[in-house]
């Protein structure tokens, strides 16, 4: 194992994802979030061939409702010696795996499980709870009717389109690539529903300049994955998918979803995450075969393409032209359908899809894929993973 650059016990390739699991995805599932969490976690452990009693580390999101005690006692975990939760909604997805990788690489634990269970399809929309949402910095935005995440991101999207000449067709290219991959994935909510440019251009507005198809799905579902040392991973039943590089990112003077108050609001957390990710990697953007880019809203993908170095500043829109994000293009993205068309579970399905690509088992397999970038929410303190086979 090559020595990492992060210190004497670097993260580079020190750990691997050896199991993934998920429940069905639907607008409404009958079971509660806790039950769905248990099902996804046990499916991931079964996939890995590791007994629940061996689990000694957990990581999830601060927004996750099923806590460690509930999960551990239901699933029959052993004694836990590491547990961690990451904030900022979908910005925390990749960080759950990163925290487990750090824990395993430094000997704090040996078998880690990351998970997310959410009934966002049948449950309440978080922005409708004004008691939770109103404290600072909401005082500066919500009284004026900037109420929902889509409104906050649409504000940046309009400015981005104005500065760089990006168009709705560029946003459509993102929505279409995700939908086309979902149409290949029987587990995707939009499996049997093709998208056309006509449908996109005539759909209802949600927050101009963003329409219905610029928004992710609202989904019930749960996913999980299992992280262990690279050494042990070589003896597992599945092809190990190595955590080659991992990063968290909260840029200086970043303001979260309403990042309107610094010198350059159009370079967000993706840029900071990318600098760290590439610095600790043997790979460069051109070595990435396939990417799973957080897509709560289509403009986040354009920003992320720039931030992670696949194109220059302001070129994210143009990059999507000519089928660039489709299978066969220079950077196939969100090959399970992403949050836009497979399921929106705070980006965890992007992690599992990255694993499937590197195992060679995706429903939209990129031939010979050996390196996959997975990103978390742009526009909030974020995280990212570079996975390799």
């Amino acid at each position: 194992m090559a020595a990492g650059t992060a210190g004497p016990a670097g993260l580079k390739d020190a750990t691997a994802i050896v199991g993934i699991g998920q429940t069905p995805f639907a607008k409404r599932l009958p079971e509660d979030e806790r039950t769905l969490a248990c099902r996804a976690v046990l499916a991931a452990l079964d996939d890995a061939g590791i007994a629940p009693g061996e689990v000694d580390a957990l990581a999830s999101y601060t927004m996750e409702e099923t806590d460690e005690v509930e999960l551990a006692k239901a699933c029959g975990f052993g004694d836990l010696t590491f547990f961690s939760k990451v904030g900022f909604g979908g910005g925390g997805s990749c960080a759950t795996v990163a925290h487990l990788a750090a824990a395993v690489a430094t000997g704090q634990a040996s078998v880690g499980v990351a998970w997310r269970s959410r009934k966002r399809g049948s449950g309440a929309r978080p922005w409708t709870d004004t008691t939770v949402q109103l404290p600072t910095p909401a005082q500066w935005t919500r009284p004026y009717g900037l109420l929902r995440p889509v409104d906050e991101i649409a504000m940046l999207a309009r400015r981005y389109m104005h500065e760089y000449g990006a168009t709705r067709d560029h946003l459509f290219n993102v929505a279409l690539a995700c939908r086309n991959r979902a149409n290949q994935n029987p587990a995707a909510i939009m499996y049997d529903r093709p998208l056309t440019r006509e449908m996109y251009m005539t759909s209802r507005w949600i927050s101009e300049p963003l329409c219905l198809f610029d928004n992710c799905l609202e989904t019930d579902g749960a996913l999980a994955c299992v992280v262990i040392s690279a050494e042990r991973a070589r003896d597992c039943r599945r092809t190990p998918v190595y955590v080659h590089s991992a990063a968290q990112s909260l840029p200086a003077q970043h303001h979260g979803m309403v990042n309107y108050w610094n010198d350059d609001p159009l370079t967000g957390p993706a840029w900071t995450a990318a600098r760290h990710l590439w610095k600790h990697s043997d790979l460069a953007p051109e070595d990435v075969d396939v990417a799973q880019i957080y897509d709560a809203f289509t403009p986040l993908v354009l920003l992320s393409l720039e931030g992670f170095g696949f194109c220059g500043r302001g070129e994210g829109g143009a990059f999507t032209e000519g089928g660039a994000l489709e299978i066969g293009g220079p950077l196939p993205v969100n090959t399970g359908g992403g949050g836009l068309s497979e399921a929106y579970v705070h980006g965890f399905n992007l992690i599992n899809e990255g694993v499937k690509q590197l195992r060679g088992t995706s429903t939209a397999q990129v031939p010979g894929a050996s390196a996959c970038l997975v990103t978390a929410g742009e526009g909030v303190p974020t995280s990212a993973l570079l996975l390799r086979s």
Partner: protein
Amino acid sequence: MLRPVTDADGAPFWEYAARGELRVQACAGCGEPRFPPRPCCPHCQSFEAEWRLVPGTGRVWSYVVPHPPLLPDYAELAPYNVVVVELDKAPRIRLVGNLVAGPGEPLGSLPADRLRIGARVRVVFDDGLPRWVLERS
């Protein structure tokens, strides 16, 4: 309609706004203005601050037009605009607000085709909230 639920750092902004004054927090040590307000200066770490009167003029930096689903009071007024205004002489101070047809006019009163990034705007106060109207000149 939602009222600002303020905190110790933000309260002075709203107290001045209730009097029809647009003031932003600035460092009493190095003089740098900052928004949103916070306990200390990110440039020099001073805890001393003042509330500086700023010209109530600026330009539209960006805008959105929300459509339902929205909270009921807002859904009734939709589609309406929400703008970010970049203040003259303080380019990093950008205030979220609404561009309305005139003082006292409601959200959504300005026709959408009048909205433009770069448009010059001027502050008006409505029930303690700063709102914005197009400059005529």
